[in-house]
């Protein structure tokens, strides 16, 4: 990793610093990619580590609500699809941790920050998934919102992040389709199945809309992130795009989106929608959701219970390396 130089009073060094910053700014202005060995401002590096590790943490915490349904999936085909999906999420976590490691922070450091509660993950996973229909809602709405957020990240200015996102987005689009398909099967099924689907969408709709983050006026990190071309569209723009996308899909499903203010606005060419409960958003964000402690406790337990395995793998690798050295 290129070390960050300490601040200096030396005028020559200050000029060199200014030149590096100018070169960085020019790369960003030209829509070129920043690569791991390029110089970058410390704040850019920090913002990326924060965003990429949060994204990775969201993938692995996000395995839990769906992983909990693998053993009960109501058909073998659904079981296979769900297993493949949860496994994809583990894979996304791996790419993202690896991409973030190119910025000089190790996976262990990032995981420690998650386990200690210092690092955040997407608040959506602090909602519970007690119904099979939630597998549909998570795919359709949660992964749908994630895609709306993530497709522009394929063009993120940091190369390893943008490239990881290309692969992730392809898989996410499959995830969204399978969620839609689960709901479609339920809506074409028995009365009980239809009720199951509607009840689930009623719970997930508003939390999914809040996944884009607070309104632009209250989003402190967004402006800088957009200036650096890590982020390309504002929270409110992406939320609007998502609502416009799901309304016709809900019609195909025959499902009602639980928002009495939701209607087409022909002047704007977009759907208007009701005010979201930002107090709830803040509450869940600050640890008071239904599942915050549950998700973190399960993650910590899996990590703690696996410690002896990781220790054994390290010990065996060291032993093998030593015997190879002795032999050569």
């Amino acid at each position, binding site marked *: 990793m290129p070390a960050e130089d300490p601040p200096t009073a030396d005028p020559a060094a200050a000029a060199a610093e200014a030149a590096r910053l100018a070169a960085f700014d020019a790369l960003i202005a030209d829509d070129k990619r920043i690569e791991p060995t390029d110089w970058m401002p410390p704040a850019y590096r920090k913002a990326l580590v924060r965003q990429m590790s949060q994204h990775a943490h969201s993938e*692995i915490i996000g*395995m*839990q609500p769906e*992983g909990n349904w*693998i*053993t*009960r*999936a*109501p*058909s*073998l*085909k*659904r*079981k*296979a699809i769900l*297993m*493949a999906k*949860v*496994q994809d999420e*583990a*894979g996304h*976590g*791996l790419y993202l*941790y690896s991409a973030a490691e190119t910025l000089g922070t190790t996976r262990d450091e990032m995981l420690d920050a998650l386990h200690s509660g210092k690092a955040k993950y997407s608040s959506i996973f602090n909602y519970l998934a007690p119904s*099979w229909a939630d597998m549909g809602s998570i795919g359709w709405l949660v992964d749908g919102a994630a895609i709306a957020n993530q497709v522009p990240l394929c063009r993120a200015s940091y190369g390893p992040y943008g490239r990881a996102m290309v692969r992730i987005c392809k898989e996410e689009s499959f995830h969204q389709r399978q969620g839609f398909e*689960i709901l479609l*099967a*339920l809506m*074409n*099924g*028995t009365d*009980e*199945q239809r009720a199951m689907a509607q009840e689930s969408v009623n719970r997930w709709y508003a939390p999914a809309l809040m996944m884009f983050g607070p309104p632009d006026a209250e989003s402190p990190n967004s402006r800088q992130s957009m200036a650096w071309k890590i982020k390309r569209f504002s929270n409110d723009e992406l939320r609007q795009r998502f609502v416009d996308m799901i309304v016709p899909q809900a019609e195909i499903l025959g499902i009602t989106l639980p928002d009495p203010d939701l209607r087409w606005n022909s002047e704007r060419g977009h759907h208007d929608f009701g005010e979201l409960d930002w107090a709830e958003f803040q509450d869940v964000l600050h640890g008071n959701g239904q599942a915050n402690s549950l998700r973190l406790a*399960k993650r910590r*337990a*899996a990590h703690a*219970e*696996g*410690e*002896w*395995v*990781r*220790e*054994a*793998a*390290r*010990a*065996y690798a060291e*032993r093998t390396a030593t015997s190879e050295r002795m032999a050569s």
Partner: protein
Amino acid sequence: MPNPPQPSSAVLTPEAIAASVTGQDATVRAADDVARYALGLGDDALVLAQRLGSWIASAPELEEDVALGNIALDTLGHARSLLTYAGSAWDQTEDDLAYFRDEADFRCRQIFERPNGDFACTIVRQLVVSAYFTALYRGLAESTDATLAAIAAKAVKEVAYHLDHASLWTVRLALGTEESRRRTLTGLEAVWPFVDELFAADPAADAVPDAAVAPAGLREPFDALVLPVLARAELEVPAAPALRGGGRLGVHSEALGPLLAEMQVLARRHPGAVW
């Protein structure tokens, strides 16, 4: 022996097998006695996949969430192919067989029912069953039954990776730390009494000697795959006596009931529903 006629490679996936045995253009239907044999093999894979599926999101590291998930998914694929084919004899779907049979109607061998235990216990079970599957599917790829041969030809490539994964971990855990060795020994002692049952007589196999692989004949190739791994791991075959088994006759351990209850609960609450 001459190679049996092979169905086109399109028959290999569970969906393609389902397409070939159901619907208007159904071209394949298992004979009743072949179906009984396929049912036992399908149950082995289904019950194991159900066990492995509960590791996801709880593995010791992210790489193992991916690996165990992959192995579970492959194994579930084998189960689906075998059960779909078996069901074709009786106009039943894979889901009819998986979700609407009771415990005594299952034909899995008992080793597949064993609870996961810790990671070492899961790995030792996985070493044993992957070696068994490797020997089985190699043999079954030569079956006179073209569908069984095709299912096995796909599966044999996948279980080779499963065996590799389990072998590497067995050695690593056995020679890693004192704790990992102790846990591996405990796992081996718990799993080994179930090994002999894998090679015990299976009336369903005896009934179709050309289509099936005789279980007794799998012992030798199994030993050839497993014993060198145990030797590398500096582990000895436990002396504990073999358990009586009986899974192929519908005799199961107490672990199967709760596993099925969990697997079947939602489907049974909505009989006739399509998912």
